[in-house]
C-alpha cells in the first residue's frame, strides 16, 4: 500500500547525501490508524468502563452484543449517557423498592423499544458488583414488563 509514494523525495539531505525514505513509515501509520479506528468503533465487546462502578468478574466467553446497556451505578440509572433515575446512598427511593416498578425507566425503555430496529428483548445490565438484589429487582421487573426478558449481566472477563 504505497499510498504516499512521493513521500521519500525530501530535499532534506544528510551529510552523506543519503535520503530518509519515509514511505514505509507512513504506510505503517496509515495501516495502524485504520486498525485502531476500526477496532475502537465496531467492537461492542469492548465497552468503555464507566466511572464509579466496579463490575464483577466473569469467566463467561460470551461477548457483549450491540444492544442497549443500562448502567446501574451508585448515583443512579444511566442509559445512553443520560441519568434516568438518581439514587440516594446507592439506592433508588423507597417508593421504587416498595412498588418494584420504576416509571421513568419504563418510559425510556418503551421509547427505546420503538426505536430499536430489531427488537430482541435484550438488555445489558452494567451494574456495580456491590449492588444488592433489592435494587436490581425493580429494574428487572420494569424491564421485563415491557419485554426486555433477555437480561445480560456485564462483567469484566477473567481468564
Amino acid at each position: 500500500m504505497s499510498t504516499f509514494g512521493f513521500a521519500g523525495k525530501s530535499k532534506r539531505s544528510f551529510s552523506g547525501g543519503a535520503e530518509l525514505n519515509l514511505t514505509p513509515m507512513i504506510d505503517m501509520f496509515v495501516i495502524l490508524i485504520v486498525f485502531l479506528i476500526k477496532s475502537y468503533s465496531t467492537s461492542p465487546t469492548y465497552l468503555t468502563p464507566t466511572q464509579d462502578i466496579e463490575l464483577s468478574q466473569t469467566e463467561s466467553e460470551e461477548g457483549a452484543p450491540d444492544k442497549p446497556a443500562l448502567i446501574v451505578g451508585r448515583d443512579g440509572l444511566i442509559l445512553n449517557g443520560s441519568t434516568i433515575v438518581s439514587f440516594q446512598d446507592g439506592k433508588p427511593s423507597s417508593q421504587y423498592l416498595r412498588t418494584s416498578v420504576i416509571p421513568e425507566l419504563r418510559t425510556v425503555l418503551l421509547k427505546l423499544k420503538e426505536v430499536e430496529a430489531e427488537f430482541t428483548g435484550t438488555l445489558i445490565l452494567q451494574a456495580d458488583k456491590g449492588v444488592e438484589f433489592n435494587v436490581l429487582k425493580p429494574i428487572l421487573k420494569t424491564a421485563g414488563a415491557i419485554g426486555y426478558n433477555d437480561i445480560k449481566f456485564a462483567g469484566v472477563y477473567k481468564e
Partner: protein
Amino acid sequence: MAFGKKQGHFGGDGGGHGHGELMITPLLDLFVALIPFLILSAVMVKINVVDVAVSKPVSVIKKSQKPFNLHVKVGPTQAVLLLNKGVKARYTVDKEGVWLEKFHSDLVAIKKVNLDSMEIRVEPLSDKTSLDTLMTVMDSARRLKKSDGDIYRLDEANKEKVKLKFLFPKVILRGVYS
C-alpha cells in the same frame, strides 16, 4: 515535534511548475499525535456478559418433562443447593470463595448423572444478596473447568459422544416476581 520550516510546500517559491514537493512533516506530526491519542483514549476492558433468563410466574407446568429441578438459593452468608426440592447441600458463603469449590464439585457430580439437564435456577435468599455473589454463583454453575475432567453425553441423532463444554448453561434468575 517539528512543525518546521516550510520547505518546498507545493512550490513555495511561487513557481509551481511541476517540481513542487508535498511537505509531509505536518502529516507525520498529525499521525504521531493521533496514534498515542487513539491508544490512550481507548482504555477499555473486555466486558463479557452472563446470559440470564428471568423466571416469570406461570400457571401451567409441562408434566411431560422429566423432573429435574436444580435450584440454588444464595444469600450474603449462606447458600443452599436443592435438587428436586430436596436439600442437597448447605454452604457457608465466605469472601475467599472456598465454598464455591465445594459447590462447583457438587454441581459436577449432579451433572454426571443428569447429562441432558442444562438448567439451574438461582434465587437470592435475601434482598441484601449482592450482584457479585450472584454472578459468582452463575459463573460457577455455567462453567466446566479443566480440573473437572471430561464429561461426555450421547448425541441421539448422530450416535456420537459429545464432549460437554458447560455444566448448566441455562441460568434462570428467580425471585424477581415474588
